[in-house]
């Protein structure tokens, strides 16, 4: 069992938790992920390691499906059955020169740890974070503290620039030379944004989030096509050269279980409603 040390709703349906998992924390590096299983009936869910502090690892997730909703109900002092990690290869952090770290939506969660590692390696770090609206923008202050400069964009213009993170990146690339970029967010955002860096000739990493089971190379569920080759995101990734990734196949495989995901969530919601009614009567 692994104790939840802190739980906080950062924005509408986006949660931040610190979990005590010393075996993960002590060797975790930027770009790696962990797998959580909440209880004996739970599924194994991969989540990026967003920060590390002593024995604690931080995860940030959007409560959309059954498991993430259940996870979001855990409070300080609760615990999860399993935490496995650190998994995957760390980010390829080097002294590139000027580095852009771009996060979209809940993908912003993955950016501080990479930005910090890039800064510590001596890079000039430009952070770009974007969300649908100001209420969904997370970790802005933290990123501002790490990055040499930080740009903010919202789809509706309620904070920062009106537009997508990709638009900001394009402007930045037009103004100055970017030596390397990380782009992390929903698959469609990574696809669009890395098209821009491809045209600009900027080396780009993306962190892929396909469906996984074991997360250790054993099942092949997370296979992705990179440069025409089949690679496993769990052990060969999760970060890959953005310009070699087939995002359409990734998105197709992410939609393997739409019916099951809906069913699982409905069943969970019915169950939690009944429990709450029970609470009122009690």
């Amino acid at each position, binding site marked *: 069992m692994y104790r939840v040390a802190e739980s906080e709703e950062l924005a509408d349906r986006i949660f931040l938790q610190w979990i005590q998992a010393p075996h993960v924390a002590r060797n975790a590096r930027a770009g790696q992920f962990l797998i959580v299983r909440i209880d004996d009936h739970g599924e*194994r869910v991969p989540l990026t390691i967003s920060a590390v502090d002593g024995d604690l690892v931080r995860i940030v997730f959007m409560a959309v499906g059954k498991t993430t909703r259940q996870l979001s109900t855990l409070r300080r002092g609760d615990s999860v059955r399993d935490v496995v990690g650190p998994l995957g290869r760390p980010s390829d952090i080097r002294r590139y020169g000027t580095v852009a770290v771009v996060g979209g939506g809940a993908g912003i969660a993955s950016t501080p740890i990479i930005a910090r590692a890039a800064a510590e390696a001596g890079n000039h770090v430009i952070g770009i974070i974007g969300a649908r609206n100001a209420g969904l923008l997370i970790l802005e202050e933290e990123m501002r503290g790490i990055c040499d400069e930080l740009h903010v964009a919202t789809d509706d213009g309620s904070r920062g620039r009106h537009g997508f993170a990709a638009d900001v990146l394009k402007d930045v690339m037009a103004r100055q030379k970017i030596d390397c970029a990380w782009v992390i967010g929903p698959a469609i955002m990574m696809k669009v944004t890395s098209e821009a860096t491809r045209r600009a000739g900027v080396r780009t990493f993306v962190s892929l989030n396909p469906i996984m089971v074991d997360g*250790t190379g054993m*099942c092949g569920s997370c296979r992705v096509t990179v440069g025409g080759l089949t690679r496993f995101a769990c052990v060969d990734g999760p970060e890959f050269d953005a310009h070699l990734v087939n995002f359409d196949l990734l998105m197709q495989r992410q939609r393997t279980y739409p019916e099951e995901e809906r069913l699982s969530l409905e069943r969970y919601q019915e169950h939690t409603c009944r429990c709450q009614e029970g609470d009122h009567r009690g």
Partner: protein
Amino acid sequence: MADRTPGARIHDFAEVDSGLTPEEAITEAERCLSCKKPACVQGCPVEIDIPAFLSSVAVGDFLAAARTIRENNLLPAICGRVCPQEVQCEGECILGGKETPVRIGELERFVADYERGQGMAVPEVAGPTWKRVAVVGSGPAGLTAAAELARLGHEVTVYESLHEPGGVLVYGIPEFRLPKEIVRAEIDLLREMGVKILTDQLAGASITVPELLEYDAVFIGTGAGLPYFMGIPGEQLPGVYSANEFLTRVNLMHADRFPEYDTPVRHAARVVVAGGGNVAMDAARVARRLGARVSLVYRRREEDLPARRAEVVRAREEGVEFVLCANPVRVLGDQSVTGVECQRMEMCELDLSGRPEPAPVPGSFFVIDADMFIEAIGQGPNPLLIRKLEGITYGRRGNIEVDDEGRSPLPRVYAAGDVATGAATVILAMGGAKKAARAIDRMLRDTDPEQA
């Protein structure tokens, strides 16, 4: 102990049969001729004294039989169920010439089940040597090495990356072939012997290689968990699974009981499985139990199927359709699998394994309608840990190269099982692990100045 009818079997995950009754066991054991030079023993990878255990069964002393088996095999309830006896002990049995061989496998299972029913005695553990050994992986090789090393008095810590120990015994082999309760009983016994089993620990990550090397010895039994894919078009479509993924979802994560358990597996009406080994049979039979019509496509002939004979027979009884001398060449579908295009194969000259080399027949394509395609064409060693071990040398299939006693070129690091041999059987993994454990023991005692 007749098999349950296939019609009943395909609706649940209970075992195919309940094993021999004591009377049946005695009658069967009495058939043994007690050969002077028992060929069956030579056919056994761990050299169980088979005539001795059979003679104990014949006189009804089942616990004595269990003790005899356990001298050489620490996991008899498992081996009795999953060993390919027809090419091992039973294949060598002299009675096989004119009638049928003694059913040694079923007798081993009977004895082990009887012993478990009586409450298993914790094996005696030697006085502590104060030597610490790390065992990586808790499959057949890791469990065997851990048991043997613990028995010899060493302090053993097992690192398992999954949330449940047992390796392929829990994620790969389905419940109807190997009830998980049996695996758990063996693991409980190990714990009682003082073995520490840590789950959720990925060696090479949760514990680093330098940390592992702080142990007095390291045994690597990480198996062959990396599934191969055929590399054919359409393989990325939703509905295409490696057998490892399909079996892990059902066996380990209980997807057959979704949504009570959170992990799903796709519902399929029509499944094609590619491959002819035990893993392919397991996948096909699990898919049957989930309610699908199943076709198993294998590129060679019936007699070349590498699976255990009994599994082929049972798969067929359960309604798995065998499409032999054929090979999938393309998965059809736009958003999801709709069919599998196959090509007929003709048998050419014998290859190194003594089986005919299959060659595609030009133009002979045909389509099997399917909404799920499962590839069971083999697995290789998982490189996750071993690529971090500097000084290790690799064989042709990415396996760790070791000598006859499991020694790797890296001092104090040993390996056995599929990670050393490439994908093979449970019993070979156990045989190798036992040899390696004994070599580790000798090495630890030699390096201890007080005992030298």
